[in-house]
């Protein structure tokens, strides 16, 4: 399986994401500069965390106007798995690939610590290696992770099982404790917590690795004969 990690000016979790896919999961992975906008050669696209364009205007807003977003939309339509973490999630929201928006954390603080997440939906290509309602320890690191959407959108997210991860103890004020949501089509996942920072015990938790393993297993089932 071949992963692309898209690097924006201001990305700072790109190497962590690379390490997770390349070393912890053991699959072919390349760092792709956002201006090299052709993503046809990859089986999955990873949008890393950071502060693309210094978070000017709103987190992810400036990045969402770059040419790579047109390319992302094209790949999303083809069904290619796209995972956006932290700033990657914000970019997915700002570009309309996922519904909703991010607000400043309720306590106005940048928080960097482990949080317990509940796996709400394990029937996705990103979460199939988890058990339903499994509690996993994955770090957050954000100042604007307070997920917001209007009541109609929230009802839709719930009805379609699009809420994949919730916080056990909501740290930031997100509606319905939302930590991660998936597109209706099921191939675009955005989440504020960082699974790529929890892929081996040395990092304090290996709970994030199952997310990448889910992606790999799903890909094998679909594209590798006899798998």
């Amino acid at each position: 399986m071949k992963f692309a990690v898209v690097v924006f000016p201001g990305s700072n979790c790109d190497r962590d994401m690379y390490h997770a896919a390349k070393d912890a999961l053991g699959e072919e992975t390349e760092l792709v500069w956002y201006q090299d906008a052709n993503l046809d050669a990859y089986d999955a696209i990873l949008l890393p965390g950071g502060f693309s364009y210094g978070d000017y205007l709103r987190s992810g807003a400036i990045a969402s106007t770059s040419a790579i977003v047109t390319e992302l939309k094209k790949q999303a339509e083809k069904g290619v798995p796209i995972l956006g973490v932290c700033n990657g999630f914000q970019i997915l929201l700002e570009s309309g690939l996922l519904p909703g928006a991010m607000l400043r954390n309720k306590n106005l603080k940048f928080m960097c610590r482990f949080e317990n997440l509940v796996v709400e939906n394990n029937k996705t290509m990103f979460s199939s290696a988890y058990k339903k309602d499994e509690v996993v320890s994955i770090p957050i690191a954000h100042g604007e992770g307070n997920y917001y959407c209007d009541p109609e959108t929230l009802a839709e997210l719930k009805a379609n099982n699009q809420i994949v991860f919730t916080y056990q103890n909501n740290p930031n004020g997100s509606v319905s404790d939302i930590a991660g949501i998936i597109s209706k089509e099921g191939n675009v996942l955005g989440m504020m917590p960082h699974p790529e920072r929890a892929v081996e015990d040395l990092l304090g938790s290996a709970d994030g690795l199952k997310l990448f393993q889910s992606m790999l297993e799903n890909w094998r089932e679909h594209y590798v004969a006899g798998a």
Partner: protein
Amino acid sequence: MKKVKIHITLKEGVLDPQGKAVQNSLNTLGYDGVGEVRVGKYMELFIEDSADIEKQVEEMCRKLLANPVIENYDYTIEEGVTQ
């Protein structure tokens, strides 16, 4: 050249933690009458005049300057020169 003044505000019902912190500070300073503060953004754009300038500004607000999920915007277009 036109000067476009744009105000971007959080929609009603959207939590404004920053506004809440400012309100608390004002209360601490003794301004007990301040019940709520909402923090927004103000921008000035200098744009070459054209027949569809309003349509352009509207698009700019919708596509980039404001996030319609959480923010409202309004603007005025007046004569202006770049500073």
